[in-house]
């Protein structure tokens, strides 16, 4: 739907805009109003316990978790690559670590 420019209607818009601005006085509420708001907020707080004091740590945990996952991935990748290239020394190191002890007497 297209309405062609109509100077008379545009004039009405301007007048109504002026009326709107001129009627915007200083808003006021009663003395009781802030207390009413606080009463509702206390009720909300009672219904839903206050957020943890460590609320600031929550986004931090997720950011750190992403970083830690990346570091773990890089470490695992590098270990895999290293063990492929140096299979014998790695196997020897493991054997030495777990099977290096002397056999039990009598075996």
């Amino acid at each position, binding site marked *: *739907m*297209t*309405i062609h420019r*109509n100077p*008379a*209607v545009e*004039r*009405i*818009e*301007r*007048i*109504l*805009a*002026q*009326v*709107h*601005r001129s*009627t*915007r006085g*200083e*808003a*006021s*509420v*009663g*003395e*009781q*109003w*802030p*207390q*009413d*708001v*606080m*009463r*509702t*907020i*206390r*009720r*909300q*707080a009672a219904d*839903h316990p*206050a*957020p943890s*004091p460590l*609320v*600031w740590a929550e986004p931090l945990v997720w950011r750190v978790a992403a970083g830690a996952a990346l570091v773990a991935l890089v470490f695992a990748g590098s270990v895999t690559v290293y063990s492929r290239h140096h299979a014998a020394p790695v196997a020897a190191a493991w054997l030495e670590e777990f099977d290096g002890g002397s056999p039990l007497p009598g075996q």
Partner: protein
Amino acid sequence: MGYDAEGHAAATKPVGFTGAQALVSDDAECIDRVLRGDIERFSELIARHQRHVLKIVQGHVPADRVPEVAHDVFVRAYTGLSQYAGTVPFEHWLSRLSVRACYDFWRAHRRGEVPVSGLTDDQVGWLDRALADASSQEFRDRADRQDSLEVLEWALGQLSPEHRLVLTLVSLEGRSVREAADLLGWTAVNVKVRCFRARQALRTIFLREWERHRHDHPS
């Protein structure tokens, strides 16, 4: 919402900042303390920002509903306080909440309620004179302020909540498209498009009503 209308009606004396509400800490400290469980500190935020919130709300909802909607804004601010990232001033964040609350008010208000009543004879007379007068200044000087307000309210009442909000912000309050986009959480292009459509809708409403009345009362 737990707005106490009786309590509000009983107290009519306006208040702003008072000495008793010495605002010694800044917003960030207050918010931090509230988030740590000291909810009474939220009253400082109310005292500091209530005028700002009331001013915004007053531009969008009827005067008798302003305290109720502003009440809702602060309750939303409290419940969403942990989501306030601090990247924008707290007052600015409250402005967005205020506009959003006004939008929700009109959505709830219009639900199941389609305004069908037309303008009264006096209001059509106003429209008639406004459309006919060559000089807007001349008309403005003679126009009945009450009629003007009623025509404005009637016309806005015909619009959808989205159109009403964007038209009020941009055309009536004179805010920039960028500012309106920021308050509404829309893109600037979206604001421009909706504002254009809202103005088109408003013009259609005026002309249709005027022509309908002329048709019903040819004299």
